[in-house]
């Protein structure tokens, strides 16, 4: 039991951080002194029966010594431990090991790079979708704003107007259908979504189209109209007359 206690002390001495290593043994070893002194004979007997195991390159025999010597024994043991560790450390770093380490580090780097690039691509897609003026979602948002402000639409559908896109299989309706095409060298995007108001059963389809303005690079509305029934449409905005 006492040798177990001393073994714990020895392990605690090897703790990382020289502060802990130095503070601790000081009063642990005084306790050890107190304990080893009266039990000197007992210890030596024990020493004979316990067969000396090589623990980290030195036997227990050197450790269990009497009163004034534990300090020196501890220093010896710590020196022995550090030397032994050094020897083992040196034999570890041969050339092949270094190459293996470098190869492993390189492969980890590749994996990290891969992951970061995929995440970056996804985040870029999301930002482009949410913030650039050429994304269908932004066009849908602006067109919905125009619909909400138009008095005829309000009178037909009712005040809190809500808009949504195509129904997907999970029941979420975030996807807005759109077509992109080029005419006269300028890009145009046509968007279609649905609106519904507080009037029950009334659903309208909104069609909006934007064209790229070559000077500013922004997309501007060409027309916005609402198809209330197959028979009736409300034209909210028609800017085609401004074209040449």
């Amino acid at each position, binding site marked *: 039991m006492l040798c177990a206690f001393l073994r714990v002390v020895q392990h605690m001495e090897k703790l990382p951080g020289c502060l802990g290593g130095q503070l601790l043994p000081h009063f642990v070893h005084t306790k050890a002194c107190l304990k080893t002194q009266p039990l000197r004979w007992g210890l030596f007997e024990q020493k004979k029966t316990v067969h000396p195991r090589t623990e980290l390159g030195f036997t227990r025999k050197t450790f269990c010594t009497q009163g004034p010597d534990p300090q020196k024994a501890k220093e010896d043991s710590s020196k022995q431990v550090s030397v032994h560790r050094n020897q083992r450390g040196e034999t570890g770093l041969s050339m092949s090991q270094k190459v293996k380490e470098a190869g492993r580090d390189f492969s980890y780097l590749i994996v990290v790079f891969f992951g970061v690039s995929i*995440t970056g691509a*996804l*985040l870029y*897609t*999301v930002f482009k*979708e*949410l913030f650039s003026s050429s994304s269908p*979602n932004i066009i*849908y*948002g602006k067109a*919905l704003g125009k619909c909400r402000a138009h008095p005829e639409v309000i009178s037909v559908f009712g005040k*809190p*107007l*809500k*808009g*949504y*896109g195509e*129904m997907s299989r*999970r*029941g*979420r*309706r*975030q*996807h807005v*259908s*759109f*077509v*992109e*095409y*080029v*005419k006269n060298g300028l890009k145009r995007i*046509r968007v*279609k979504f*649905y609106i519904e108001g507080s009037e029950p059963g009334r659903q309208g389809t909104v*069609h909006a189209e934007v064209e790229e303005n070559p000077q500013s690079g922004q997309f501007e509305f060409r*027309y916005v*109209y609402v*198809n209330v029934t*197959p*028979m*009736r*449409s*409300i*034209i909210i905005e*028609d800017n*085609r007359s401004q074209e040449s």
Partner: protein
Amino acid sequence: MEEYAREPCPWRIVDDCGGAFTMGVIGGGVFQAIKGFRNAPVGIRHRFRGSVNAVRIRAPQIGGSFAVWGGLFSTIDCGLVRLRGKEDPWNSITSGALTGAVLAARSGPLAMVGSAMMGGILLALIEGVGILLTRYTAQQFRNAPPFLEDPNQLTPKEGAPAPGYPNYQQYH
């Protein structure tokens, strides 16, 4: 257009909660089975018993926490849709952030902010994957960009109706 006559929203919460629970139970079951197998003493019978025990104890817990996450996310999402009146990717990202914040509420405000950021970024990534998938699978079916006329509803300003809009197939 729509096959269902009803709104998806309140029923979507139950849908999402159940789906998340199933995912958690199945995924958690597989992981816990392997973990229980490995952590059991040597011997096939011990290992199987350890595996079954681990699944029996932990898989419902994992399923439950997934279900809480999914249900809360869907609730906040439907709430935002109702509030804003439009369905957007912004709803999903904000819902993810708020769900993360609410579920970390016991650990104090700083943990809530961190959890909210994680939830928001996770949902943004999921939305990104969804958007990319939709765009690319739709592009497969698209033929060469057509010459699209202006719709008939516009040219006579009285709004004479068009019989049908033939270019609808081009939408994706």
